[in-house]
């Protein structure tokens, strides 16, 4: 199938997932919030978040079994760079109260100005980073 068709189909399923969590649990679907809340293991708030994470892992395992190309990585990074990228993502989403899902889908869907600003900023920062990273890697870093 064409990339655009897969993107549209996948996006639709993600929209349904976000709608499901809102209608059933009354929550905004934001993965950085889910991961942060999952760490508060002593509170009951952590439980549904672990259930959500379990669902994502089941989905990932199922797709990896039947269609491993869905996880193809043409731009592999070293462990050190991956760790650093992870730390930036962790810090950034906690400071900025959300990531691609919470701000990019749910926040904009709610017409939240904060989410529109956040999404514009992280997309711009991502675009700049891609150019800078390519330059650095071409330079042998």
């Amino acid at each position, binding site marked *: 199938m064409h990339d655009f068709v897969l993107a549209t189909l996948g996006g639709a399923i993600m929209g349904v997932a976000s709608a499901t969590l809102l209608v059933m649990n009354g929550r905004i679907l934001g993965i950085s919030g889910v991961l942060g809340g999952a760490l508060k293991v002593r509170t009951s708030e952590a439980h*549904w978040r672990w259930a959500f994470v379990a669902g994502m892992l089941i989905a990932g395992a199922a797709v990896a079994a039947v269609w491993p190309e869905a996880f193809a990585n043409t731009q592999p990074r070293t462990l050190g760079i991956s760790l650093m990228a992870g730390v930036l993502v962790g810090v950034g989403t906690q400071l900025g109260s959300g990531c691609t899902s919470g701000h990019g889908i749910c926040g904009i869907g709610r017409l939240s100005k904060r989410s529109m600003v956040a999404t514009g900023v992280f997309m711009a920062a991502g675009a700049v980073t891609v150019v800078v990273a390519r330059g650095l890697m071409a330079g042998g870093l």
Partner: protein
Amino acid sequence: MHLLSALIAGTLFGLGLAISGMTQPGKVIGFLDVTGAWDPSLAFVMATALAIFGPTYFFVTRRRQKPVVAAAFDLPTKTQITPRLVAGGVVFGAGWGLAGFCPGTAVTSLPTGELSVLAMVGGVFVGILLTWGVQSAVQHEDVPVRADF
């Protein structure tokens, strides 16, 4: 019940991410590469997800007093554009562009067993805890449980 619906929502979300192309870091980097060989396909992911979630949100929050399996809606209340929000966006965008993974795609990719994905997810948790640590040291108080979008 609320755990089952969260499990279903998580499964659907992970499936959507994997089908859409978002779990291919090269495609994400291609989408962000607006000055180079731009790959616009991932814009369709956001557009379709928004087209479904947006109307549902307004319909549901106006028509229903409470969600199906929880006592009340728990929705973000913040409205201020703060320096903290913008700084967070810059830092998150840098991490996203650096490796091509956001939190959702990294977690969904964990079952592939790729060590770089494991390092990425580990880094996300380190980053979260680091932020909380600095925050509570600065504020001398507990950090609220839920995120505000």
